[in-house]
């Protein structure tokens, strides 16, 4: 059975913060569409730089730059208006909003209901022992025995155990949720049902044996309340084991492959349900996988198009052929046979193209490294003992970054263009990074590290996280446990991750004792003597 379920990036417990999250989503969408808009424009406009000096200009807005020519125009650049939207963007935004509202509405209600049930259960559980202790005093105070020493000791222990229970429940259950999962947590439901049954049975017993008969032995009642709190603490221990400890021991090795470019990683996971395993994998995806770069895939697509375009199939028999399926099959077989026989030189092109690209990248990288190293030599940290220079000479990190940025900007931009990373880094982010490196005394090599090779997705700005909506596509039910050989897909907007799992084999280890005195050696010679 093919179950399709959707993730959303919102916390599923906070009803209050719903509105603010939605605002964040909307503004993020608008920002995303805006940057896409500026990327799609082909015309290049170079604004004439104003005459004011770079250092004194604190109102610099470098974010909304026209196209990629910030390398050439190195002095202050004014951007386009911040609120320009094209028609296409408006349509896209409204569609996104509709989608999000439609799905989120249902989930919002579901989360709200779950949250309120949990809160009610928690309150019930917390106030039950207190009710057990207080009710006799309210209902039959004159018949009740007074509280002796042992009884008071038990009251103190009830109080402290309740406090510990409160803290433990807060620590385990009241953490901000990391994700919204498609189906409910089976274990949590089980635990809630267990607690409910437990408390109900205690109430039953209490109401029948104590309330009805109006028991006078207060110590017995206090002991009963203590036993309830003890049992609740044990249930909490069970919750810790089921929810936290059980999946720590690694049991499965999952292989995660990105469908677009084949990046593969292997992780060890414990016994988890498929949805929780998917969540763990997505969290690790953001840290480990290099960022998805669609610009790098265009080369293989064009090659594939060339393969297909080289052959044309003509139907010689005319349109009267009624075995259409057979005809399609024979067509494709004919194409495959022709392609196999054809002398294809595209491998040659690929080889030389790749060699040329490699050479170009290395040359640009060398120029970049030299430019950055030279730029960094212009900046020196001011020592306190030096006589105070004129205020115009002393700069804070941001100004220092802006001062040395123009000398390396061109080389950096050329390098990013060659490696097709230019859309990942905006000029503002580069200057910010430069200021950060200068502040923390990083060397030029450390500054360049984030540009020379693609880093994990989290390293880039929030708009590159490609939305936090993931779709889990799985044949097995998503609350069923991970098994050996289970396969599921995690689909994002641009790409999908294919996950396969294998069970870690059972290891049979045996021991062999080596006596330290048993290490003895002989000399093995092969000498040659001339006679």
């Amino acid at each position, binding site marked *: 059975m093919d179950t399709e379920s959707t993730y959303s990036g919102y916390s599923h417990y906070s009803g209050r913060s719903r509105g603010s999250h939605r605002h964040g989503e909307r503004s993020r969408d608008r920002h995303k569409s805006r940057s896409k808009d500026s990327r799609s424009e082909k015309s290049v406009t170079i604004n004439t730089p104003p005459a004011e000096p770079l250092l004194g200009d604190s109102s610099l807005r470098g974010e909304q730059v026209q196209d990629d020519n910030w390398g050439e125009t190195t002095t202050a650049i004014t951007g386009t208006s911040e609120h320009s939207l094209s028609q296409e963007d408006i349509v896209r935004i409204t569609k996104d909003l509709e989608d999000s509202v439609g799905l989120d509405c249902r989930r919002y209600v579901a989360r709200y209901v779950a949250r309120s049930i949990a809160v009610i259960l928690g309150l019930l559980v917390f106030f039950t022992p207190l009710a057990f202790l207080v009710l006799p005093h309210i209902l039959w105070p004159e018949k009740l025995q007074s509280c002796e020493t042992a009884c008071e000791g038990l009251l103190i222990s009830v109080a402290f155990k309740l406090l510990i229970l409160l803290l433990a429940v807060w620590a385990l259950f009241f953490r901000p949720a990391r994700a919204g999962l498609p189906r409910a947590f089976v274990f949590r439901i089980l635990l809630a049902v267990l607690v409910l049954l437990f408390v109900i049975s205690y109430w039953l017993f209490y109401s029948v044996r104590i309330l009805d008969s109006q028991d006078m032995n207060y110590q017995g009642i206090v002991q009963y309340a203590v036993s309830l709190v003890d049992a609740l603490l044990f249930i909490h221990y069970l919750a810790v084991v089921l929810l936290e400890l059980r999946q720590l021991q690694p049991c499965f090795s999952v292989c995660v492959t990105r469908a677009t470019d084949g990046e593969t990683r292997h992780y060890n996971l414990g016994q988890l349900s498929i949805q929780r395993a998917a969540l763990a994998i997505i969290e690790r995806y953001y840290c480990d996988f290099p960022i998805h770069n669609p610009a790098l895939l265009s080369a293989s697509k064009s090659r594939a198009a060339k393969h297909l375009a080289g052959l044309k199939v003509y139907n010689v028999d005319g349109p009267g052929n009624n075995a259409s399926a057979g005809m399609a099959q024979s067509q494709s077989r004919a194409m495959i046979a022709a392609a196999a026989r054809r002398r294809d030189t595209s491998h040659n092109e690929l080889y030389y193209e790749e060699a040329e690209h490699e050479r170009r990248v290395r040359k640009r990288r060398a120029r970049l490294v030299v430019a950055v190293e030279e730029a960094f030599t212009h900046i020196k940290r001011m020592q306190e003992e030096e006589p105070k220079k004129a205020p115009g000479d002393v700069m804070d990190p941001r100004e220092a970054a802006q001062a040395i940025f123009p000398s390396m900007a061109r080389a950096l931009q050329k390098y990013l263009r060659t490696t097709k990373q230019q859309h990942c880094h905006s000029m503002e982010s580069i200057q910010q990074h430069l200021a950060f490196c200068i502040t923390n005394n990083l060397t030029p090599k450390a500054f360049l590290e984030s540009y020379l090779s693609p880093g994990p997705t989290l390293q880039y700005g929030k708009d590159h996280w490609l939305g936090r909506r993931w779709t889990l596509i799985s044949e097995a039910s998503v609350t069923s446990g991970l098994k050996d050989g289970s396969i599921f897909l995690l689909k994002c907007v641009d790409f999908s991750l294919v996950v396969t799992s294998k069970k870690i084999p059972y290891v049979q280890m045996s021991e062999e004792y080596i006596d330290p005195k048993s290490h003895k050696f002989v000399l*093995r*010679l*092969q*000498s*040659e*003597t*001339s*006679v």
Partner: protein
Amino acid sequence: MSFVPGQPVTAVVQRVEIQKLCQGENLILGFSIGGGIDQDPGQNPFSEDKSDKGIYVTRITPGGPAESAGLKMGDKIMQVNGWDMTMVTHDQARKKLTKKREDVVRLLITRKSLEEAVKHSKGSHPSHLPAQTNARTTKDRVVL
């Protein structure tokens, strides 16, 4: 050329007589030996059976007395002047070969091509014997 410990060894041997050459105050034979029961048999490039700890000829000086006597590289020395060489240490073998009082050594050596030659000659015409070298050589079956 391999043997089973405790059983008699059978081999086709060739008798080689070498006159020692006087070089200064040394008498030299013109070849080098390797092997011995105290050596590592696995490193011997000439032996067929890598557990054979016999004495092998590893090098022949060109133009020396051993070469002119017909000794070849890779030969296994079975006896020297009547002394057995199949179960000796490297140093004992060297001593037996370099006795100062003797100026001629009579070796019994064996090599793979001898076996094959005997088989070949037994199978084909009996008068087809391998060519004789200039030193006195006879082929004998020796039981040690």
